């Protein structure tokens, strides 16, 4: 059976926090509801658990790959053209530091872009159940649930003084 999304709209953060509390008490998992705001409220304002993400892994991976490529390129050049310069060893670190730094940075940038695509979950071709008034200050609590629980969730959201409750495709 298809899931449905139920959106409750609130004027105050207190009311939205009550709605989140109602959902939690009803046993709805924290992956099944979202809070939508026009302003970034500090984490935990509505009693929701902290958001986990792996964004930081991406630039780190990219940096490692960039550094590896830079070392391969730099050392490969030194070995391919074994010219002694100023009595220094053929294979040495200082001449490849600039390229290493640059490619490490570029690797981090490229992978951060990939990370944005994976972690931000944007672009979203369709906004789903949404209300344009959220950017104007209303707070939305949207819960995804099986069709048979829609009325129960609607009641939970309504009980926290929702000014409107909408139901749509989850």
């Amino acid at each position, binding site marked *: 059976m298809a899931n449905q999304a139920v959106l409750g709209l609130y004027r105050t953060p207190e009311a939205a926090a009550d709605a989140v509390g109602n959902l939690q008490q009803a046993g709805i998992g924290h992956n099944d509801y*979202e*809070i*939508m*705001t*026009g*302003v*970034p*409220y*500090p*984490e935990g304002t*509505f009693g*929701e658990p902290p*958001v986990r*993400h792996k*964004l*930081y892994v991406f*630039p780190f991976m990219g940096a490692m790959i960039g550094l590896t490529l830079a070392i391969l390129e730099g050392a*490969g*050049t030194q070995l*391919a*053209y074994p010219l002694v*310069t100023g009595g220094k060893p053929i294979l040495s670190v200082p*001449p490849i530091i*600039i*390229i290493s*730094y*640059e490619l490490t*940075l*570029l690797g*981090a*940038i490229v992978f*951060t*872009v990939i990370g*944005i695509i994976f*972690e*931000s*979950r*944007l*672009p*979203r*071709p*369709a*906004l789903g159940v*949404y209300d*344009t*008034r*959220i*950017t*104007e*200050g209303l707070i939305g609590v949207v819960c995804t649930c099986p069709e048979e629980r829609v009325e129960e969730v609607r009641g939970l959201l309504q009980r926290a003084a929702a000014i409107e409750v909408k139901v749509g495709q989850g």
Partner: protein
Amino acid sequence: MASEEVARDVLQRTFVKGGRYWQAVAVLAVVFLLGVVGFILKLGDERAQWGYFAATFSYLFTVAQTAPVVSVALRLAKNHWRRPLARASELFAVVGLFNLLFFIPLLILLPSIEGRNTIWILGVWPSRFYTPHIFDTLALVGLVVLGLLFLWTAAVPDFAAAREQRGGRGRYAFLALGWQGTARQWRIQRALLGLLGGLYFMDVLTTHFLISSDFSMALVPGWVDSIYPTFHALTGLQAAVAVTIVTMFLLRTVGGYREYLPMESFWGLSKILLAMSLMWFYFWWSAFITFWYGRLPVEQNIIQLIMFGPYRPFFIIGFLFCCIFAVGLLIWNPLRKSPAAMAAIAAMILVGGFFDRMRLYVASWSLADTTEHELTKVPAAIWPQVPDLLVIAGGLAGAVLVYMLATRVVPVMSIWEMKELRLYQVPRQLVRRRMLSLGKPE
């Protein structure tokens, strides 16, 4: 002003521009086209004649592509007075796209590294002769992409607000990419701003290093100065703060954003500008004294070339405007607290910065032979010809034009950050004085 009013007001100012705005756009477009004419007239000139073009490129890079660092650094420091100025500095990232146009002819004109002392080593094909071309392009394009990504990340909630006001369609629907303001999206956005900001800061310093080394120092035989790239980056940061102050002042007086840009933002930046101006002297002196005491013929020739010789007038103007006058004025607190005075001082620094770039880049590009072992003779000054003046005017006008056109799309005030500040700020009475209490969520 309430949060909802902030959004409505800023978006209205973004969507609808007055007659003065369009007049300014028209004038800038005409000057830019004259610059294109100047560029066409320059085609076929020898490399030594392209110094003013290189100086304009370097200046735009110094000012505009370093400007987002102001927002990055203050955001990382988590202060609040930067909120009204954040977008004004981030928006300079779009000028980076324009500056890439200046970069292309310079890449073509930049000689091969063969026979020259540069920061690069001769590698294998295809990088054998074109190492700086490849890596400098990567760094600059990377910086432009990073700047635009940073701008988009910072502006995406405002694009969503604009999307709602425009009925959910059009360019804002595209730019917002379906942003809904979920807790996860806000969390990712905050993390991204930190990450992209940190990477931008790292990349801008690298690019300063590469541009200053490859497009000026390595063109002068025997000029080996490890402090110069740092001086280049530091003067870039000074110019970045200065251009942000001038932009804020224009937004405040002409743009109608007086209510959003309080004195505190100017005051806060003024102290950073004072520190930068003091450091200008420190870095310049550290490089100069090494050459002056060294007294090798090549060292004497180099300080003649870039400071006291043919380009002495440029050097004196740069030194006075960016350092002596700037410090002499910025030490006075009443001036630091006056937006008009700060804008005047910042404008003076920007003018001085341009003369400083001219004395460095015109001098470097004026040498016919870049493969000598060392500089043995200081060439006579190359003064700007009409095409050079057109290119300079057109380049600067083009950069301002691109910025102004960008303000038609991207709100110049960060709406969500201004609204966020209102969440944390509560007016209260302390005995007989009214003040603002500020909450710190972290």
